[in-house]
């Protein structure tokens, strides 16, 4: 952690991998909703901004995504 600025963590969705069963939506209901076909929708399209209090939940989503479609970036 740097002390210059609050690091902005984003969760990148690799749409070429995601198969839309929505586990991440269940783990991050504050950030993600389901689209018409079951794929995650969040503000930011492919780069979902993760607030600090949801970083652990986001890490879970990354670890549990069955297709490894998620990645966290600072």
């Amino acid at each position, binding site marked *: 952690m740097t002390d210059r600025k609050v690091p902005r963590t984003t969760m990148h969705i690799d749409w070429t991998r995601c198969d839309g069963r929505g586990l991440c939506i269940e783990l991050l209901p504050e950030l993600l909703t389901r*689209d018409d076909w079951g794929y995650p929708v969040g503000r930011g399209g492919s780069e979902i901004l993760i607030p600090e209090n949801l970083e652990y939940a986001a890490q879970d989503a990354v670890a549990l995504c069955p297709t490894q479609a998620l990645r966290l970036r600072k």
Partner: protein
Amino acid sequence: MTSDQSTISVRGHVAGPAGTTRLFAAGSGDYGSHQAAFGPLPAMGRAPLIDELSRSGLDGRGGAGFTAWQKVASVPADGRRPVVVANGAEGEPLSKKDAALLHNAPHLVIDGLLIAGQSLDAKELHLYAGAEQLAPVIRAFKERGEARIRLHEAPDTFISGEATAVVSAISGGLPIPRDRTKRLTDSGLNGRPTLVHNVETLAHLALISRFGSAWFRSVGTGSAPGTRLITLSGNTAGARVYEIPTGLCLTEILVSTGVDPQAVRAALVGGYHGTWLTAEQLDAPFSREGLAPVGARTGAGIIMTLGSGSCGLAATADILGYLAGQSARQCGPCTNGLPNMASQFARLAYGDASGRLPQEISRLAALVTGRGSCAHPDGTARLALSALMAFASDVEAHLRGRCEALQ
């Protein structure tokens, strides 16, 4: 670095072509005509090339519209030897300019690729284009004994020219986009820094390296210097390619190419991922800055006019149907969303209209935007939304079971 960065290391013994016929100034695609018109191949270091490109104001001619120098400068000078790719894949059915360039001035494209490659000390050079466009390039290679550039055949699909799709195809994979987490200029082909430039951008680069940025700027406008290739088509006439001074306004382009603006109802600017402009908006200059206020982009230099008797909604529905079929079917929102949006639009265009359709189309457009690994859903959504705006009164007419074009 010296303060004398504007000096060009090798000048051709010929003067830069006067007037606005530049890329096609050799008059013929053979090496003798090319050398007579443009002189010998210049050599340029990395810094002077970036500097000269930056002064020239050349922007990328493939559609994304990055400035040419920024892309070259973003190749890290960290000792890893980069790969340079000339991209001549014109997946866009409305564009014919890269094909025209490769057929009429293949040596200029080859020059641009060689100059960029040499100034960046590239490890590999590649040229990627459709099969028909490779034929003149192969002839040109024979004439000059060129063996350093590897050729790759691009399939005839809409997204085959997307930069990550190009890199994927060249590395032996499928010509479909990849998820991007890094810039290609950081990590592209086999992890090497990879510069992908459109063939027209490289051809201009070849001229700027010879004749300098001041020459380049001697035509066009301050914010949109030089010339550019455009493909002009209409629903009555086939596509024609022109080299025009950049920044001419759309009406001037139409008049100078023999199209009567009075007979034009709207124009699709920038291609299938582009924007419909109404007749009243056609005084906008055809440049990045000129088109920004009306929400359009030059794309790959595409203008398609819609005649007064044609329905813009039907034209859009047909294009959306095509684009939905061109999804690489990798990303769920694109795979599902584009066919859905296209079919809702077709209902609006072809008489099965219900009052909720425009809202539903807008909702789907917002839903797919930003949710693909490439810009295909975004571009397709942009086209749909721009049609709803440009043909707003016709949307109302269609909802009442009429069509403005048929009245």
